[in-house]
Structures are given as C-alpha cells and as structure tokens.
C-alpha cells in the first residue's frame, strides 16, 4: 500500500469538522432543518475529501532556491566586490 503523501489524520479531522460547521451554517442561514440528513452527508463528504487530500498530497510547497532556504544570502549569485 502506498504511503500517504500528505497529512491524512489532519485531513480526516479537518474534513469532519468542516462538514459539521458547514451544516450548522446552513441550518442557521439557509433554513436547513436541524435533523436534516445533510449533516450526515456533509460530515461523510468532509471525511472522504479530507482523507483523499491528506493521502494523495496534491499540493506542493514552492521550492526555494539554494541558499534561500533559511533566509541566508546566496553567495554564488552575488558577485564579490572587486579589489581596488
């Protein structure tokens, strides 16, 4: 089985809570009944999407150029001042 590329546990927890809070938002602002099956659907969808994102890791951080990783100045790119 392939190893997860992203952060699946973070994805699952965030997905479930996202579905829950989105359901609450729809209940208050859009008139969705409090006992609606939408709660189950959105929480399940959040779980699946969060797990999928965390497992596949489709986003990549922007690569930094050598020497810029820790905020240091790249010596190779900066020419040394010539001696007088």
């Amino acid at each position: 089985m392939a190893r997860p590329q992203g952060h699946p546990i973070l994805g699952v927890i965030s997905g479930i809570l996202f579905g829950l809070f989105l359901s609450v938002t729809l209940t208050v602002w859009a008139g969705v009944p409090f006992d609606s099956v939408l709660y189950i659907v959105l929480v399940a969808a959040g779980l699946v999407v969060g797990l999928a994102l965390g497992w596949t890791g489709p986003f990549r951080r922007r690569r930094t150029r050598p020497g810029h990783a820790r905020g240091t100045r790249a010596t190779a790119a900066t020419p040394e001042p010539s001696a007088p």
Partner: protein
Amino acid sequence: MSRALAFSIAAGVVIIGAVVALPLAVASADVVTPANTCTASGTWVNAGFTKNSTDYSPNDVIVVPQKDKVDWQGHEFGKPIGYFGPARAIDGAVQVHMPFGVAVTIWHWGGSHSQRYSNQGQESYNVPSVLVGVKLKLSGYENEGGKRVCSGSVYLEVAGSKTKNPIAWAGIGGSAIFAVGMLAAGFRKSKLAYDDINP
C-alpha cells in the same frame, strides 16, 4: 420548571399534546396521525395568536416568539376539558430531533390508571439565543395500553435576528478554519535536504 420543559410544553401544544380531539367539521391539514385522534391548541399570551394542531401539516414551520406564555389545551378523541373516562395505562412524550438521528425526549408523561382524556394549563418559556432561526423538528406520541393512539410532528422556528445567534458566526468561523485545515492536509510532506541537515 426547567427551561427545556417549559419550551417543550409550549412547543408541544402545536404537536400532539397529551390528549387530543377537537370535533372538526372539516378535515384539513393535521400534524397528527391518524388525523383528529388527538388535537392540541395554544394561545401565545403576549404575542396574541393561537395555533391549532389541525391547521398545520408535518412539513409546516411554525414561527414562535423567543419568550412568551402559552395557554394550552390537549384533547384525546374529542373529549372536553374535565372529562374522565375509563382508566387505562398511558404513555407519551415530546421529542426534539437532533442531527445524526438522535431524538431527545424533552417532555414525558404516563400513568398506569389515568382517567384523563384532556388537559390544559399555562406555561412560560424563554428559549436561548443559540436556537434563534434554527428549524427544529418536534414530534410527539401518545400510547394507551402499549398501543399507539396518535403521533405527529411539526417544525418549529424561534423568531429573532439570526445575527444575534452565536452559533451562526461559530458556523462560519469553524467552516473557514477547517477548510484551511483540509487544504493544509493536502500539502506534501517536505523532506529536509542534505544541506539543511548538514550546513
């Protein structure tokens, strides 16, 4: 009397109540099944309106004030207030339906030798602001001798500004925060380069 109980009673007047049955000439909408076996009515004293269980269908939404006093009546088989009949075992409840199929009983009644077939009273209620604007499903039932006499349900919404409901803002804030969390979970784990470990 607890707030939840008062609220349940106020709400219950439009559902089935303990007992019910106003003799209706015209059968129309009814939140109760079978229709007209049980009926209930409530008069909101401060708001100045009356609601009858026979005026609504189960999918209707009844908007009620956040705080009020309710004069309520309930009848079973059309028996008038003060009527006493053959004693029988009764059991009934009013429930609020929550997400994920959870039903919370907020009012329950029963007795092994009840002779009442109708009842009335006045109750005050004050609903917390977290329920303002939320469409709640209330249901109720009445059993006699273990058999279901009637049951019914209706939606209830507490009137008021949704912007004053803290849950409304918590929902938006939580959605935004955890959407970011989901996106963050999608970033690939970064491995440290050799130069980062051995500068």
